[in-house]
């Protein structure tokens, strides 16, 4: 790692040293600084998309990471799947069926500190009436009054029946959907 610029090394050192003694709980989601995006492959071509509307209830105390709580609700109709055609299509029955299942929900069941600023988040993901276990690593970055939770995971669309019928073949739209999330929360007064 000798190619790292000094400032980066310094920043990392500070990040490791940063967790302060005083108890804080980051629990106010800052939607405008948060994002929930994904990349899917269409004919082997990566296409980017995102969900614009979601809510999260979270509580994270850096001193007690294992006690952290997280819930995420996504308004599936707020999807931008890359084009207007795609947005109309994925709202339909074969994909999310947003009329019947407007919301996808994740509820964390356990948070395991992995050392450093990394956590392992496990929980239940519910999409389209199906609930499955999901585990994802999360990187926490604290800066001033806010904490940023970054993570990425691969979700297989077929597990939830997303893209049925003519879309079930993975030749055109791949099964693996790369999901990237960034949740920024500020601290309210500690309890």
């Amino acid at each position, binding site marked *: 790692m000798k190619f790292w610029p000094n400032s980066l090394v310094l920043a990392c050192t500070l990040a490791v040293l940063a967790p302060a003694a005083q108890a804080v709980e980051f629990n106010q989601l800052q939607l405008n600084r948060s994002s929930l995006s994904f990349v899917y492959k*269409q*004919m*082997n*071509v*990566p*296409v*980017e998309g995102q969900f614009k509307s979601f809510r999260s209830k979270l509580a994270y105390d850096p001193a007690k990471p294992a006690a952290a709580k997280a819930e995420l609700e996504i308004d599936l109709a707020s999807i931008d799947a*890359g*084009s207007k*055609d*795609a947005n*109309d*299509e994925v709202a339909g029955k074969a994909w999310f069926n947003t009329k019947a299942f407007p919301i996808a929900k994740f509820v964390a069941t356990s948070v395991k500190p992995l050392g450093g600023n990394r956590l392992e988040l496990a929980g239940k993901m519910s999409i389209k009436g199906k609930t499955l276990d999901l585990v994802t690593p999360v990187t926490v970055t604290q800066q001033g009054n806010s904490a940023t939770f970054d993570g990425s995971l691969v979700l297989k669309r077929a597990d939830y029946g997303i893209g049925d019928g*003519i*879309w079930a*073949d993975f*030749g*055109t*739209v791949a099964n693996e959907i790369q999901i990237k999330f960034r949740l920024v929360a500020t601290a309210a007064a500690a309890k």
Partner: protein
Amino acid sequence: MTSHPAAPTPNTGYTFTAIGLHWLIALTIIGSFALGFYMADLPISPQKLKFYSWHKWAGVTIFLFVVLRLGWRLAHQPPELPAGMPAWQRSVAAATHVLLYLLMVAVPLSGWLMSSAKGFQTVWFGVLPLPDLLTKNAELGDLLQQMHKLLNYSMAALVFAHLGAALKHHFIDRDDILARMLPFLRNPSGDTQ
């Protein structure tokens, strides 16, 4: 590089390379145009996504053929036009050919730019990603789509003019213009000039 069977004078015929590229490009352009015309208004489906990919692969391929062909054209003098051809026809023929060459370059480029602006990268045969020259921008994407369409219709009009002229030369003027590109039409007894 190629032998000229029964070609007595050096500059009356195109080389095999030139003839091959002409027809290869003609057929791939016609096929790709037809596919593009057909696929554009289809409702979204896996088939449509496949068609779009194929169309884009074809566009990149045609562009490469055109680069080869321009290379050939720059290195070779095309055969002479028939001696009796009026000056205005020579000018029109020259202009048509210049425009056709320009469009052969501009049409695939506009498609590539349009794809970039629409946020769908071009990945040649699903393997070789071409860089996106533009960042995603829906309005620019729609504008480039209109341009791609307009350039294509211009090319279609020129192709019809080109075809009409070739047929006119063959059936009315009875010169060897068409036979130069279709050597099997050549009068077996020899040169028609």
